[in-house]
C-alpha cells in the first residue's frame, strides 16, 4: 500500500513537468507542402492601438479575398500576449499561416533561427518586391530572407504643446533643457514624462532613445557590432539618466507598475506633459488628443539629439503552413506598392519601400514622420537604433529586466550595464 501511494504521489507530481515536456517539439521540422491545401488562411496581426484600424484592415483584406478567391481569417492579439505565445503556437503546429511580427534578430530573426519561418528568398526573386535594402537586411538570416520588413518607425518624445505653452515652457532642444522643463512641470504637479515599464519592453525604447542621442548612429553601430562594450561610460550614463529622472520625480511613481496603455492615458488626460513613444502612435494621437501634439527626438547633451529608428512588424509565413501558395499570394498582396499607399493613407503606417504619397491627405505629424523615416533609406541624416530589434533574446531580457530593476530601485546603472555586457557576449 505504501509503495502504491508513493507511486501515486510521484506520478501525480510528475505531471507538472508535462507542461514543458509536452511542448518540446522539434521546431522547424515540418516541411511546407501543398498537400491538403485549402483556400482558407489564418493571418495573425498585433492588436492595433486603434480598434478602427483592424476594421479597415478587414475591409482591405476583403478586396484581396475577392480578387484571389482565398478566404483570410484575420486574428488580432495584443503584442505582449503574442510575444509569449507566438513561438509556442508555431512550434506546436497550431500557428497562423501568415503573421505580422517585428524585424530584426530579436524578433523575426529568433524565429528564423528556431526554424519556424518559411524561406521567402525565392519569392522575392519571383515577385520582385521593392523593399529598401537596409530593411531587407533586417529580415535576412544566414543569407536567407524570411519576411517582408515591417513599417518604418521612429521613437522619440511626444509633448503636449498646449500644456507647455500654458506653463511658459519651450520644447527642449538639449538635455539640460529637458531636465529644466521636467523640473518646472513637476513643480506645477504635472507628471513631466509618462514613462511606463510594466511590460518591460518599453525599457528598451528608453535606453535606445537616450543612448542613440548620446552616441549617434556610429556609436550605436560600434556597440551593436561589439566594437564597444556595453558597460562603457556612455551606456552607464544613458542608464543613469533614467535612474536620476526616476529619483527626481520626473517620471510617474513606479513606472514599472504603469502599463503602456496607462501611460498613454496619462498623456491624453493632460496629467503628463511628455510621452516617450513611437511614430506608430501618430494616427491615434491625431484622432484622440484634444490638444496640439509635438514630436521631438530625445535631446542630447549639446543638441536636439536624433530619433531612434527601427522597423515594426511585417508579414512572415509559418514554415508549417499547409497553404503555402495562398500564403505567398497574401504576402505578395501585402508587399505591393498599392497596399503601401493604402497603409500610409489609412493606417498611418510607413512601409520600407518607395511610396507614392501624391494626393494623400496627411496630418502635420504624419508628414514630419514621413520625412524623418525617408532619411533612413537615403542616409541624409543621422538616425539612432531601436536596440531590441537588433539584438538577441538573451540580451533583450537582460536589457528589459535591467531597466525595470533600475526604475524600481533594485539595481544601479553600473550593475545593469555589466549585465548588458555579459548578455551581449553570450
Amino acid at each position, binding site marked *: *500500500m*505504501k509503495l502504491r*501511494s*508513493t507511486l*501515486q*504521489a*510521484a*506520478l*501525480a*507530481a*510528475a*505531471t*507538472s*513537468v*508535462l*507542461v*514543458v*515536456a*509536452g*511542448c*518540446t517539439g*522539434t*521546431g*522547424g*521540422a515540418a516541411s511546407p507542402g501543398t498537400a491538403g491545401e485549402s483556400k482558407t488562411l489564418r493571418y495573425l496581426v498585433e492588436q492595433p492601438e486603434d480598434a478602427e484600424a483592424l476594421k479597415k484592415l478587414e475591409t482591405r483584406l476583403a478586396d484581396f479575398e475577392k480578387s484571389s478567391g482565398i478566404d483570410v481569417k484575420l486574428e488580432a492579439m495584443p503584442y505582449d500576449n503574442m510575444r*509569449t505565445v507566438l*513561438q*509556442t503556437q508555431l*512550434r506546436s503546429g497550431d500557428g497562423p499561416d501568415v503573421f505580422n511580427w517585428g524585424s530584426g534578430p530579436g524578433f523575426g530573426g*529568433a524565429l528564423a*533561427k*528556431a*526554424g519556424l519561418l518559411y524561406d521567402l528568398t525565392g519569392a522575392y526573386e519571383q515577385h520582385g518586391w521593392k523593399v529598401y535594402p537596409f530593411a531587407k537586411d533586417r529580415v535576412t538570416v544566414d543569407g536567407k530572407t524570411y519576411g517582408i520588413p515591417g513599417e518604418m518607425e521612429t521613437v522619440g518624445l511626444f509633448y503636449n504643446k498646449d500644456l507647455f505653452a500654458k506653463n511658459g515652457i519651450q520644447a527642449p532642444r538639449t538635455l539640460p533643457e529637458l531636465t529644466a522643463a521636467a523640473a518646472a512641470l513637476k513643480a506645477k504637479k504635472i507628471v513631466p514624462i509618462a514613462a511606463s*515599464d*510594466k*511590460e*518591460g519592453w518599453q525599457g528598451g525604447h528608453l535606453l535606445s532613445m537616450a543612448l542613440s542621442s548620446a552616441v549617434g548612429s556610429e556609436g550605436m553601430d560600434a556597440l551593436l557590432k561589439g566594437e564597444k562594450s556595453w558597460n562603457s561610460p556612455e551606456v552607464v550614463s544613458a542608464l543613469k539618466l533614467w535612474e536620476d529622472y526616476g529619483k527626481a520625480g520626473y517620471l*510617474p*511613481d*513606479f*513606472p*514599472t*507598475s*504603469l*502599463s503602456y496603455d*496607462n501611460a498613454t*492615458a*496619462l498623456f491624453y488626460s493632460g496629467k503628463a506633459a511628455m510621452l516617450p513613444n513611437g511614430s506608430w502612435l501618430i494616427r491615434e494621437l491625431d484622432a484622440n488628443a484634444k490638444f496640439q501634439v509635438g514630436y521631438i527626438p530625445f535631446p542630447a547633451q549639446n543638441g536636439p539629439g536624433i530619433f531612434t529608428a527601427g522597423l515594426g512588424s511585417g508579414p512572415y509565413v509559418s514554415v508549417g503552413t499547409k497553404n503555402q501558395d495562398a500564403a505567398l499570394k497574401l504576402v505578395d498582396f501585402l508587399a505591393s506598392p498599392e497596399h503601401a499607399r493604402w497603409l500610409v493613407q489609412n493606417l498611418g503606417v510607413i512601409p520600407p519601400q518607395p511610396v507614392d504619397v501624391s494626393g494623400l491627405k496627411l496630418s502635420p505629424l504624419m508628414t514630419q514622420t514621413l520625412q524623418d523615416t525617408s532619411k533612413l533609406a537615403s542616409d541624409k541624416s543621422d538616425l539612432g537604433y531601436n536596440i531590441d530589434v537588433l539584438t538577441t*533574446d*538573451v540580451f533583450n*531580457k537582460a536589457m528589459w*529586466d*535591467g531597466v*525595470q*530593476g533600475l*526604475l*524600481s*530601485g*533594485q*539595481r544601479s546603472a553600473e550593475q545593469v550595464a555589466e549585465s548588458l555586457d555579459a548578455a551581449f557576449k553570450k
Partner: protein
Amino acid sequence: MNRTVVETSPAPTAAPSSSTPVKPPRRSGRPRSGTPSVTRKAQTRLGLILVAPLMAMVVVFLIFPLGNALYYAFVDFNGINPRPPFVGLDNFVELFKDPSVWAALKNNVIWIVLGTVSPLVIGLGLALLVWGVRRGSIFYRVAFFFPYILPQVAVGVVWGWIYDPTRGWLNRGLELVGLGSLGTGWLGNPDTALYAVLGTAVWATSGFVFVILLSALRNVDTELVDASLLDGAGPLSRLWYVVLPQIMPVFLMVTTITLVGGFSVFDIVFIMTGGGPAGATEVLGTYAYGNAFQLNRISYGTALALVITVLAIPFAVWLNRLQRRLSLQGMGA
C-alpha cells in the same frame, strides 16, 4: 503459563489429541474457489482489456512525456537541433549555480508558506462561521467558492486592474478613507509585487478550502462539541481539541493540494507580472517557462521543471502518508 507447560512437555507416546495443531489440508491441483480455469483466464483477459485504455493513457500522457523530459534535461536542446548534444548533468549543475534560480526558489518558499497557511486559516475561519448557519448557507458557499472556479487568467487580469496605480480601485479606496499615503504601484514595487500577486491567489484559493472544510465540518460529532461546551472548553480549545482532530484527514488533504500548488505556481504570476519587475516575482515555474520558450533553452527549462517536481514529491508523499495514518486510526470526518 499453563499453556506453555503443556506445549513444552508433550507426552512422547501420546496419541494425537485436540491440542495438536491441525494440519492444513493438502493443496490439490484444483483451486479452492472452485472456479474453472477457463473462467479464470477469461477474467484475466477481461481485466487486461479493461485496464488497457487507462494504461495506454498513462503511458502516452505520463510515462512518455516524463521520459521525454528526462531525455531533454540531459541534452542541450535549443528547439532547432534535431540531435542535441548530450551534456550529462550540466543543466543541473548550472541551475544550482544560477542565482536567479535561488531567487525564484526563495519566492516559491514564501508562496508555499503564505499561500498555504493563509487560505487554510481564512477558509477554516469562514467554514466555522458558516457551519452553524441554517438560512443562506448555499449563498455563502456559492459566493466564497466562486473565485476558485474563475479562470486564473481572468482573475489575474481583473486584479491587475484593481492594483493599477492610476485607475485601480485599491489606491482609490485608500485615498477615500484617508490612507492615500499607503497607495503604491502594487505590482511594480518590488517590495509589494509578490505579496500583491499572492493576495490574489489567496483570494481565489480560500473559497476552495472553505467549501471542503465546511463539508468536513458537517460530519463532526456535535455531541462531542456540546460535551466540551458543558465541560467549560472555550472556543479555541473546542476548535483545537474537538473539531480539528475530527476533520484532520480532510484538512491535510487540502493542505497537500495548496502546498504542492505552491511549488508549481505559474499562471497567476505569469499573467499579473510576468515575473517582474526585474525578477521580483519570479518563481521557478515562470523562470522555467522563460528559459524554455522565450530564450529557447528548452533543456534548461526542462531540468528546472524536473527540479520543481522533485522538490514537491517528498511533501506530497509525507502529507499523503500522514493523512492515511490518521484515517486508519479512525480520526476524521
